[in-house]
C-alpha cells in the first residue's frame, strides 16, 4: 500500500508541535499474517498520551502510546517494537487477529 496525499496525520502532528507539544510518530513498517492495518499506517502521540490515527484495529494502541511517552520522556530519537499474537513476551497486549506487526517509533526533534 502506498500513502495518501489526503491523509492528514502528519499535518496534525505539525499542529501539535506548533502548540508546543512533543510528538512521536508510530508507523507500521512490517506485517505478517492477518494484521488489520497496512504498512505505512500511522498514529501520533504526544507527551500526555493523547493520540490520533491508528496502527492496528485498537489491539496495540495502548502499548504504543506508552512506548511513545517513554521515548519522549527519555528523549530517545527512535525505537522499533514488534507485536505478536501471544502475550507471553513483555507485552500484555497482543493482536487478537493472529497477525504480527512491527512498529517504528520516532520522535520529532525540536524545531
Amino acid at each position: 500500500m502506498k500513502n495518501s496525499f489526503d491523509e492528514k496525520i502528519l499535518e496534525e502532528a505539525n499542529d501539535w508541535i506548533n502548540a508546543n507539544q512533543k510528538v512521536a510518530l508510530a508507523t507500521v513498517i512490517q506485517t505478517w499474517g492477518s494484521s488489520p492495518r497496512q504498512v505505512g499506517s500511522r498514529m501520533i502521540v504526544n507527551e500526555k498520551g493523547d493520540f490520533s490515527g491508528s496502527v492496528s484495529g485498537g489491539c496495540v494502541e495502548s502499548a504504543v502510546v506508552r512506548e511513545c511517552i517513554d521515548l519522549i520522556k527519555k528523549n530517545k530519537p527512535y525505537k522499533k517494537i514488534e507485536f505478536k499474537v501471544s502475550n507471553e513476551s513483555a507485552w500484555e497486549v497482543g493482536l487478537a487477529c493472529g497477525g504480527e506487526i512491527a512498529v517504528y517509533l520516532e520522535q520529532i526533534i525540536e524545531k
Partner: protein
Amino acid sequence: MKYTQLKEIIKKKSSKTEFAIVTNLKNGLSEIYEPGKSLSKEFEIHKEQIDNFFKLKKNGVIEKKEIFIETYIRPIKVIIVGAVHIAQYLVDFAKSLNFEISIIDPRGYFASEQRFPDMKIINKWPDEAFKEIETNENCALIALTHDPKIDDPALQHALNKKFYYIGALGSKKTHENRCQRLKDAGFSSNQINSIHGPIGIKLGGRSAPEIALSIISQLVAETYKR
C-alpha cells in the same frame, strides 16, 4: 525525524509531488527522495530497490536491509461522466479512498458549483473535456448519464486508452443497446465485455448513496485486482 523534514514532507504532500520517505531503522536517519533525483551516500546504494517500491506503489522494508520506504504516489484518476445525484455521493466516498475525481458534464444545470463544492467540473462534451485530462491505463471511467450522446464518446475514449476500469450505469436493456452501438462503431467484443454494465456490485440497494457505494466497491475491487 527532524522537524524541518516534517515540514518539507507536508509541503511535498500539499503540492502533490510524488516522493518517498526513506528511513534507516538502525540509526534513525531519514531522507526525502523524489524519483529521478539523487540520494545521499547513506541511501544511494539502495536506490534500485527504492525505485522498485515506487513502481509497485508500495510501502515496506527492503528485504534483509533495515531500510523502510514510505511512498507517496498520485492517486488514481477517476473520471465521472454525469454530474448527477449519484456522483455527489461518489465524490464523498472517493475522498477517503485516495481517488482523484474529475467530473464531466456538458449540461450546465447539473454541473453547478453549488452541487459540487470544491470540485472542478468540466462543463464540456466528453471529446472536448478529455483534451484537458491526461489519461492512460491507470484511469477509471464511471459513466452515469445513460444518455448515449454523452456517455458513448467517453466510453469510446476510455476503451481506446485502455482504462483499467470502465463502468456504465443503465439497465441490462440499456447496456445491450450500448454494446450494440459500440460494436457498430468497430469495437471488439473483448473490449465491449470489459465494460462493467450494469455498473456496480450487487448490494440490492436502489438509493443514490447505495448505488454510489456499489459502484465505488466495484472500483476498489478492480483496483486491487490489477
